[in-house]
């Protein structure tokens, strides 16, 4: 088994049969995020400089904190990101998450998540890969079928 160091820049991409506007809503509105983002809702005004707080839907636990850096609906959203669900990741500095939404032909839109600035956050880097795959797979399923992923 080869030892793998978690990457300081990670890129996740998925093609979704939905409009950029629908994808933007799915990223920013709690009625959508609660259905594919580990049941999370995000408290923020989605304005540059505003704080970002990701909570469990019942607000029993805060999962994420950060700050909104850039907002260009429906194509680009940049925030800082610190995962609070684990004591080790919570102790690390903020990293950065960029959402890029690019329309194509035939009603298919490309969604890319770039999680970078993870150089000083190795635990977070090691921790998020499975999470982003689950989130993007769930987001695609929700928008294309109207149903969240099973399980």
């Amino acid at each position, binding site marked *: 088994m080869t030892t*793998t160091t978690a990457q300081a820049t990670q890129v996740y991409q*998925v093609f*979704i049969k939905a409009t950029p506007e629908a994808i933007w809503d799915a990223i920013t509105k709690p009625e959508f995020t609660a259905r594919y983002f580990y049941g999370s809702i995000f408290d923020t005004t989605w304005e540059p400089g505003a704080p970002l707080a990701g909570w469990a839907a019942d607000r029993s636990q805060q999962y994420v904190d950060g700050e909104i850096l850039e907002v260009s609906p429906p194509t680009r959203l940049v925030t800082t990101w610190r995962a609070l669900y684990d004591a080790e990741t919570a102790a690390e500095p903020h990293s950065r998450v960029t959402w890029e939404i690019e329309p194509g*032909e035939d009603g*298919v839109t490309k969604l890319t998540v770039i999680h970078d600035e993870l150089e000083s956050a190795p635990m977070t880097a090691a921790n998020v890969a499975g999470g982003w795959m689950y989130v*993007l*797979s769930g987001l695609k399923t929700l928008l294309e079928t109207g149903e969240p992923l099973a399980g």
Partner: protein
Amino acid sequence: MVWDVDDDRVFKALADPTRRHLLDRLYERDGRTLTELESELEMTRFGVMKHLRVLEEAGLVTTRRSGREKLHFLNPVPIRLIHDRWIDKYRERRVAALADLKTELEESA
């Protein structure tokens, strides 16, 4: 640009040992240039480019510019989608069948 959201391209891209090897190299260390990837393969630059293009068209590799360099990143999401669609589904049925068999045998014992 037309993007293919079908599984066909992913299966075709994975059906080649050199392309699977390239994915494993990127899994070990992501964000590599063509020159770095080429140096680890017994293959011409053109050959590696061709394989990377197939992987890119299948969405398994994405590229981003960093200064003058073009970096290649592994995108694991299509593999996850195939897993959800083609592996989880059948594994669950198999597990369910075994669970049913156990119940049946225990009830008749």
